[in-house]
């Protein structure tokens, strides 16, 4: 296999993992909670995009934005209905809530979509690009480009907007956030919205590369989780780089070693890395909360 082909495909998958990891890290930094329903938010985004693009024949950018907007709304609703009243409970309890939410959302998706597997056509039907001996799919380039754009927007949001700064402040010290008059309830709601919007956007991008079915989220959750762990789980740049690494490692492993172990190769590399750096590539020392 051609190295450039593999790298581009790896980067495309890696950008998706990075988006998933970003959503996980945002929730984790705010609530000390791993959101096990994040894969289902991605699935929901995929189906929203599919319905808008395939069934309702809306233009692709509209379908994409719609998935992001409804994904954000879904996040806010999840926070309001499932978390606001139990936010003070032990984080194991909260994690169980997300597990329940995951099963619930898969069940809901089966009502209109059954157990069928849907194909989501690429955004545009351009031919594959050949660069020397490398073959590059336009959908891969689109995925990398949009993921990069979303990451840049997120970075600008956290750096320059009042809400973004207040979200970072709440992540660092919730008492401090209350002391400076931040409405932390609104910050929680916004954080869920943002994380879910990123997840839903990743779902639309993921659907043409994988396939669309109610259980599709599990694999992305695992890879996104691996990416976040690799990056240290507290670090936004870590999540992005972790995502790229997981995507590229599994492509190269599949291309040069064996496709049989492609899906688990990234996890193997992560185990090795965590032996050497237990807190991840960008993690700080672990602080136990028991």
């Amino acid at each position, binding site marked *: 296999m051609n190295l450039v082909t593999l790298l581009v495909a790896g980067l495309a998958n890696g950008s998706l993992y990075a988006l998933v990891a970003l959503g996980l890290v945002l929730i984790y930094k705010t609530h000390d909670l791993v959101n096990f329903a994040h894969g289902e938010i991605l699935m929901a985004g995929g189906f929203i995009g599919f319905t808008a693009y395939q069934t309702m024949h809306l233009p692709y950018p509209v379908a994409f934005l719609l998935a992001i907007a409804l994904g954000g709304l879904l996040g806010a609703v999840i926070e309001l209905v499932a978390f606001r009243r139990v936010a003070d409970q032990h984080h194991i309890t909260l994690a169980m809530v997300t597990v329940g939410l995951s099963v619930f959302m898969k069940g809901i998706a089966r009502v209109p979509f059954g157990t069928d597997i849907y194909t989501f056509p690429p955004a545009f039907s351009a031919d594959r690009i050949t660069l020397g001996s490398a073959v590059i799919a336009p959908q891969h380039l689109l995925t990398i480009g949009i993921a990069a754009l979303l990451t840049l927007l997120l970075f600008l949001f956290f750096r320059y907007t*009042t809400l973004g*700064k*207040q979200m*970072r*402040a709440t992540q*660092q*010290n919730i*008492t*401090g956030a*209350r*002391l*400076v*008059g*931040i*409405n*932390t*309830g609104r910050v929680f709601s916004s954080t869920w919205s943002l994380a879910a919007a990123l997840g839903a956007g990743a779902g639309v991008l993921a659907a043409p590369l994988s396939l669309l079915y109610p259980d599709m989220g599990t694999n992305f959750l695992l890879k996104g989780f691996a990416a976040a762990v690799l990056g240290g789980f507290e670090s936004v740049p870590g999540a992005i780089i972790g995502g790229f690494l997981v995507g590229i490692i599994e492509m190269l492993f599949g291309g040069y070693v064996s496709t049989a172990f492609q899906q688990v190769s990234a996890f193997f590399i992560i185990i090795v890395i965590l032996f050497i750096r237990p807190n991840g590539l960008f993690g700080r020392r672990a602080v136990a909360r028991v």
Partner: protein
Amino acid sequence: MTMLSIRNLEAGYGSLKVLRGLSLEVPRGRVVALLGGNGAGKTTTMNAIAGLLPAAGGEIRFEDRELRGLPSHRVFARGIALVAQGRALFAEMTVRENLELGALAARSRPDIVALTEDVFRRFPRLRERVEQRAASLSGGEQQMLATGRALMSRPSLLLLDEPTTGLAPIIVSELGRIIRELNAGGLTILLVEQNVRMALQVADEVYVMRNGEIVLHGAAAELQNSDEMFSSYLG
């Protein structure tokens, strides 16, 4: 004129009652100190005023409007800023970012540059550390930053919860001077302290509490040499 008036305040943590009917008044333009031993309920009182801890009973009136039951951001919006024990800084952010956040949710649209400059004039050490992370500051500098951050919202009532804990004597007296200066500029201050000597020097009025109740109240000048003061404080 009374700015903050607390009557029969009850608060606690779960089934543990810490405040059992606490009453005190903070007149506008004064420095009032709230003293007492460990576990007397001083921090609980401050947290209940600031809306960090829901009060179970009684009333907290600020400028003739009820505060009890309001969440912390609404209390803050009325013009009350708390400098908490432990400082609660944003550890990974710079001094500048910490100060900016102090103003972002303030009542009126703040002039952050002018407010920051004002804080730097009061705490010149912070100016030298402006791009450093809050976590890298010394204890005294962190206390200055926490106080400066609270001032960024231009509060009309400043609550200071044990600002001198763990600080060197020279920093303690500097902090005392700054409290007097802030008060001279028109700020009303409620100060919780373990350092009785410092509190008596800067405060106009003193309340002493024990087991969740006020046991002594008087002008600081009168209590300075009173045996009653020390016996009630020491229990």
